[in-house]
C-alpha cells in the first residue's frame, strides 16, 4: 500500500493540534472564572470564594502545564511537515505566531507565578490583579492563534509574489474577514467549556456532600452563565455560518449536505453523503429550513458541492457529520442550561438528583463539540491550505515520505497516550482530593514557579480515593 505523506501529515497535524487545543479552550474559560472568584472574594471576604479559587487554581495549573508541553510540539509542526507552506507564509505567520509565544511567555513570566504561588505572599489586590492579567493574557494568546487560523480560511492583506506571501496591510491580514466570528465563537466555546467543567465537578461534590456551601455557589453561578452563553453561542454560530457562506460557500454546502445549488434547501437531520455518486442516501430533513437559516428566506438559494471540480471538494461526509455532532451537543448543552433554570425556579437546584448525576457526564460535551467544530471548519477547507491560494499538496514538505510521516504520527500518539493518560489521571486525583478549607496553610516555601507545581496532590497516595465530607 502506498502511504500518502499529505494525508498522514494532515492526520498528524489534526491529532497534535486537537490534543493541544483542548487545554487552551479550557484554561481560557477557567482563568476568567478564577479572576471572577478572586474579585468576589476581594469584595465580600467570604471564604467560600477563596476555597473555590484555590481549588480551581490547582486544576488550572495542571491544564496549563499540559498545554505548554503540547505547545512545544506545535511550534515545530509547520516546519517538519509543511515546509513549503511555512516558507511561503512566514512573512505573515512567523510574526503572528511569534507574538503568541511572546504573549504567553510574558504572561507566564510576570503573572502566572503570582497567581499560583503568591496568595499568602503578596497583597490581596496584587493577587487579584495577577488573576485578571492571566485571564487577559490567555485571551491575547488566543487572539493571535485565531488571527493566524482565520487567515488560512479568508486570506487578506497579502500579495503572492514568486510563491511567497508578502504582507501589504497588517491590519487587514490580522483582522481578516472571518476573524471576528471565529474569535467570538471560540471565546464563547471557552467559557462554555469552563462552565460545564465547573458545573459538573460542583454537582459531583454536592452529591457527595463535600464543601456544600462553596459548591452550591459555584453550581448556581455556572448555571446562570450557561443559561446565557449556551443560546448565545447558537446565535454567534449562526453569524459565523453566514460569514462562511459568503467566503467559503463550498464548505457550507458540505455542512448542509447540499450537492447541487438549489432553492428551498431542507435542513438534513440524517443522510449518508456519497462523494463518488455526488449525492446523499437516506435523507431525512425539514423542508426549506436550511435555506431559511442561511438566507432568512424559505426559498433562498444554497450552493452545492458539485459546483467545484471534484479535486477541489472537501470530504463531505466528515464535514457533514462533524457539524451535526457539534450542533447536536450545542443543543444538548442548551437543554441542560434550561433544565437547571427550571429546577431553580422550582427551588430544587441544590437537591441531589438526576440532574446532579448527569451533569458530571456533560463535562465531556463542550470538549467534543469544540473538536467536532474544528474538524468541520478545517476539513471544510480542504484541499486548500490557504483558501483558494495554496493547496495541501503545494504546502507539504517535498522530502517527506509516507513512512516518515507515519512513523512520527505513531510516535506522537504513543508519547501523547502516556503523557496525557498521566495528566488525565492526575487531574482525577486533584478532583478526588477535594477542596481544602481556606485556613489550610500553603506549604512549599521556596517552591519553584512551575505551572504544574501549583497542584501539590500526591500522584499515588492510596489515602486519596474520595473527597472528605465536611
Amino acid at each position, binding site marked *: 500500500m502506498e502511504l500518502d505523506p499529505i494525508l498522514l501529515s494532515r492526520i498528524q497535524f489534526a491529532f497534535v493540534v486537537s490534543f493541544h487545543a483542548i487545554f487552551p479552550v479550557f484554561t481560557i474559560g477557567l482563568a476568567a472564572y478564577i479572576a471572577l472568584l478572586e474579585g468576589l472574594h476581594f469584595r465580600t471576604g467570604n471564604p467560600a470564594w477563596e476555597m473555590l479559587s484555590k481549588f480551581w487554581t490547582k486544576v488550572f495549573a495542571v491544564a496549563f*502545564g499540559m498545554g*505548554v*508541553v*503540547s*505547545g*512545544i*510540539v506545535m*511550534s*515545530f509542526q509547520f*516546519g*517538519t511537515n509543511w*515546509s*513549503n507552506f*511555512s*516558507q511561503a507564509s*512566514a*512573512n*505573515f*505567520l*512567523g*510574526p503572528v*505566531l*511569534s507574538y503568541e*509565544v*511572546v504573549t504567553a*511567555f*510574558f504572561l507566564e*513570566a*510576570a503573572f502566572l507565578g503570582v497567581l499560583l504561588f503568591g496568595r499568602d505572599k503578596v497583597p490581596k489586590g496584587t493577587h487579584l490583579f495577577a488573576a485578571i492579567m492571566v485571564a487577559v493574557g490567555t485571551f491575547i494568546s488566543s487572539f493571535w492563534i485565531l488571527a493566524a487560523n482565520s487567515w488560512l480560511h479568508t486570506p487578506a492583506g497579502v500579495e503572492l509574489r514568486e510563491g511567497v506571501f*508578502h*504582507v501589504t496591510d*497588517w491590519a487587514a491580514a490580522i483582522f481578516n474577514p472571518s476573524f471576528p466570528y471565529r474569535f467570538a465563537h471560540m471565546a464563547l466555546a471557552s467559557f462554555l467549556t469552563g462552565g460545564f467543567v465547573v458545573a459538573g465537578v460542583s454537582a459531583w461534590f454536592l452529591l457527595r456532600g463535600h464543601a456544600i456551601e462553596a459548591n452550591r455557589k459555584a453550581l448556581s453561578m455556572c448555571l446562570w452563565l450557561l443559561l446565557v452563553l449556551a443560546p448565545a453561542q447558537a446565535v454567534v454560530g449562526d453569524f459565523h455560518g453566514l460569514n462562511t457562506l459568503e467566503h467559503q460557500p463550498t464548505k457550507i454546502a458540505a455542512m448542509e449536505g447540499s450537492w447541487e445549488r438549489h432553492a428551498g434547501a431542507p435542513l438534513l437531520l440524517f443522510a449518508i453523503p456519497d462523494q463518488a455518486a455526488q449525492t446523499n442516501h437516506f435523507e431525512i430533513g425539514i423542508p426549506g429550513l436550511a435555506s431559511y437559516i442561511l438566507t432568512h428566506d424559505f426559498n433562498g438559494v444554497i450552493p452545492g458541492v458539485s459546483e467545484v471540480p471534484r479535486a477541489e471538494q472537501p470530504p463531505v461526509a466528515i464535514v457533514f457529520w462533524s457539524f451535526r455532532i457539534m450542533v447536536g451537543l450545542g443543543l444538548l448543552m442548551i437543554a441542560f442550561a434550561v433544565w437547571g433554570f427550571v429546577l431553580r425556579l422550582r427551588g430544587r437546584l441544590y437537591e441531589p438528583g438526576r440532574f446532579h448525576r448527569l451533569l458530571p457526564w456533560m463535562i465531556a460535551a463542550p470538549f467534543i463539540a469544540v473538536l467536532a467544530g474544528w474538524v468541520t471548519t478545517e476539513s471544510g477547507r480542504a484541499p486548500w491550505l490557504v483558501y483558494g491560494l495554496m493547496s495541501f499538496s503545494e504546502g507539504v*514538505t*517535498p*522530502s*517527506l*515520505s509516507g513512512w*516518515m510521516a507515519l*512513523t*512520527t504520527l505513531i*510516535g*506522537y500518539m504513543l*508519547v501523547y497516550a502516556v*503523557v496525557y493518560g*498521566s*495528566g488525565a489521571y*492526575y487531574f482525577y486525583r486533584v478532583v478526588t482530593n477535594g477542596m481544602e478549607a481556606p485556613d489550610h496553610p500553603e506549604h*512549599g516555601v*521556596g*517552591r*519553584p*514557579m*512551575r505551572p504544574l*507545581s501549583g497542584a*501539590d*496532590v*500526591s*500522584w*499515588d*497516595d492510596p489515602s486519596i480515593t474520595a473527597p472528605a465530607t465536611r
Partner: protein
Amino acid sequence: MALIDTTMIWAVIIAFGVMMYVLMDGFDLGVGILYPFAPDEHSRDIMMNSVAPVWDGNETWLVLGGAGLLGAFPLVYSILLPALYLGVFLLLAGLIFRGVAFEFRFKARTSKHYWSIAFAGGSTLAAFAQGAVVGAYIQGFEVEGTAYAGGAFDWLTPFTIFTGIGLVIGYALLGSTWLIMKTEGGVQDWAYRVSLPLLAGLLGVFALVSIWTPLVDEFVRERWFGHLYLIWLLPAGALLCAWTLYRAVRRRDEGLPFVATMGIFVFTYLGLLASKWPYVIPPTFTLRDAASAPESQLFLLLGVLFVIPIVLAYTAWTYWVFRGKVRADAGYH
C-alpha cells in the same frame, strides 16, 4: 538599503538565543544525563531539586528561537526541520517525557522509579538529538531550489552520532560542574570525581572534530588555514577555559568550574559560527538569502525587543531567589 539592518539584528538575536539555550538547558539536561549514575536515591532528589526551579525557563529559549526563526529566517526553518525530521521528533519526544517526569516524580512515591527513568532517558535522548543536529549542520544539507532534497537518514552518519555523543558528554560536564556549585557533601564529592573524566572525554571529541572537519570540508579548511589568524583565538580561549576548569576542580573551587565550562561552550560555539559564516544553510544559502521580508522582520522585532529584557530579568530573578546550596529537606516536595 534600509535604515537599519534588521537581518543582522535578527542574526544576532537568534545566535544569542541558541547560545542561551545551550548553556542553560545544557546544564539541566546534563543533570538528567548524570542521573542514573548518582550514588543513591537521596542524591537524585537533591540533583533534581537543584534544577527544578529553573529548567522550564531555560527551555523558553528553544521555543523563542524556533518561533523567531520562522519569523526572521523562514528558509532556515523550512530546510532544517525537514532535513532533521526524525531527529526533531526524538528531540521533542525526549523533552516532553522529561518535562512531565519532572513534575510527576515529585508527586509520586511508589511510581517514582518510572518517572526517574523517563527523566534520565528523555534528557539523554534530547541531548543526543541536539548534538546530532550540530553535526548535521557541520555536514551541510542537500538542497534543491529552496527545499530540502535529501533522505530521512542523511543526518544520521557516523559523524553525527559522534557529535551527538559529544554533546551528551558536554552537557554532562555542564551538569556536573553545576552540581559542584549548587550542592555540598556527598553529591558534591561525586560531582568533583566525575568532572575530570568528562572533561577528558569532551576534549577528545573536540580534538577529533577539529581534525575531521577541515579534512572533509574545503570551505572550513580555507576558513581556518587562510589568512584569518584572529580566528585561532577562539580554540585558544576554549583550551584556556579547559585548563582553568582542570585547575579549579583540583583546587576544589566551587563556582569556577561551572563558569569555565560555560566558557568552553561559548568559545566552541563561536568557533563553529566562524567556520560557516556567512552560510546559514551550508553550503547553499547565506544569511541574506534566508531572511524574510524586511517589514516582517521589523514588525516582529518590536515585540521581541520588548520581551527579551523581561525574559532575561525574570530569569535572573528566578536564579537569585533560588541562589545558594540546595538541601534535600528544602523546597520541592
